[in-house]
């Protein structure tokens, strides 16, 4: 452990805002989607019935699309740095994946390999979320806007992709929530994304040693 005392700004205000907007939109989309896919009255009634749930689903979809799009437009440098980080898989990342970062109880690890701002698991999650979002957005809008003019076979294809991508995304986000908010080893990161953006330097130096070294060097 590093003995540096202090705080590191891990996620800026706009990143946190975008994360909140996307989280709320995703939760509404997931709940309404599940409600009318499996015809679950209890969830449908929360949104004022299935007709309203369907309407809310569509407009939450607009927020789900416009939120990150605006973020990318206004924060292209942050977005580029993020893409750079998650696309950079080094030897340490593969070593981290081999031991699953020490998160799996039966894989004994003394010290997980040093990581970037995001560890190898978060990098993989990042890619899956990006491609999942693209697929869901691309298939969602034709189902809403051109459902009367598109052939049934193409719409069916959109429905299948939309449904299965959503299912995978819900599972991924569930896992992400567990690791970021509940797991004792990593829940310290929760407040940095959901509240003030800061994380203890000591924790950062341990969990994201490579990134922290870069910050120290630049400081």
């Amino acid at each position, binding site marked *: 452990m590093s003995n540096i005392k202090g705080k590191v*700004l891990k996620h800026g205000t706009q990143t946190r805002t975008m994360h909140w907007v996307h989280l709320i939109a995703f939760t509404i989309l997931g709940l309404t989607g599940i409600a009318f896919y499996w015809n679950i009255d209890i969830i449908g009634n929360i949104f004022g019935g299935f007709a309203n749930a369907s309407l809310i689903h569509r407009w939450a979809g607009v927020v789900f699309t416009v939120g990150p799009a605006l973020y990318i437009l206004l924060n292209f440098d942050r977005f580029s740095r993020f893409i750079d980080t998650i696309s950079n898989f080094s030897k340490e990342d593969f070593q981290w994946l081999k031991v699953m970062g020490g998160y799996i109880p039966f894989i004994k690890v003394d010290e997980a390999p040093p990581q970037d701002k995001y560890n190898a698991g978060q990098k993989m999650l990042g890619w899956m979320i*990006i491609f999942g979002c693209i697929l869901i957005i691309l298939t969602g809008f034709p189902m809403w806007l051109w459902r009367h003019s*598109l052939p049934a076979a193409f719409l069916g294809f959109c429905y299948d992709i939309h449904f299965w991508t959503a299912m995978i995304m819900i599972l991924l986000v569930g896992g992400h929530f567990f690791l970021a908010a509940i797991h004792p080893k990593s829940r310290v990161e929760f407040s940095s994304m959901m509240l003030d953006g800061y994380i203890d330097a000591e924790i950062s130096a341990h969990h994201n040693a490579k990134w922290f070294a870069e*910050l120290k060097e630049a400081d």
Partner: protein
Amino acid sequence: MVVGSPSEEKCIRREIKMKFFGEREGMTRRQFFKGAGMLTVSAIFLGAFSKLGFDAFAASTDYIEKRAAGLYALDEKMAIRKSHENPEIAQIYKDFLSPGEVKPVSEKAHHLLHTKYGKDIPNFITELKSKQNEAA
């Protein structure tokens, strides 16, 4: 404050204790190309998916047009093209549905030729069964 004094050391300690590392700003050329590349890949993905949609729409429209043209062509070849001008239908009305005259939507025609849909079907089946039982 005297340099090297205990108060200066205390200040330095506090400074170390309260050290804040801010977010890095700007981007390198590599980062720019990766960000722009990601947007380009997304745009290509959007284009490919849109093309799939447009092709499917064009194929479907083409099929519908050909099917409609086929139906019109078949219809044009028919000797009798309107049901109310069909002598067989007129005869059925005269003999059975409205005896002695051609009266479309006669009571018998309404009951025999009009059917039920959706939620009305179970009641209709019950009605038919009861009539069947009465006849037996």
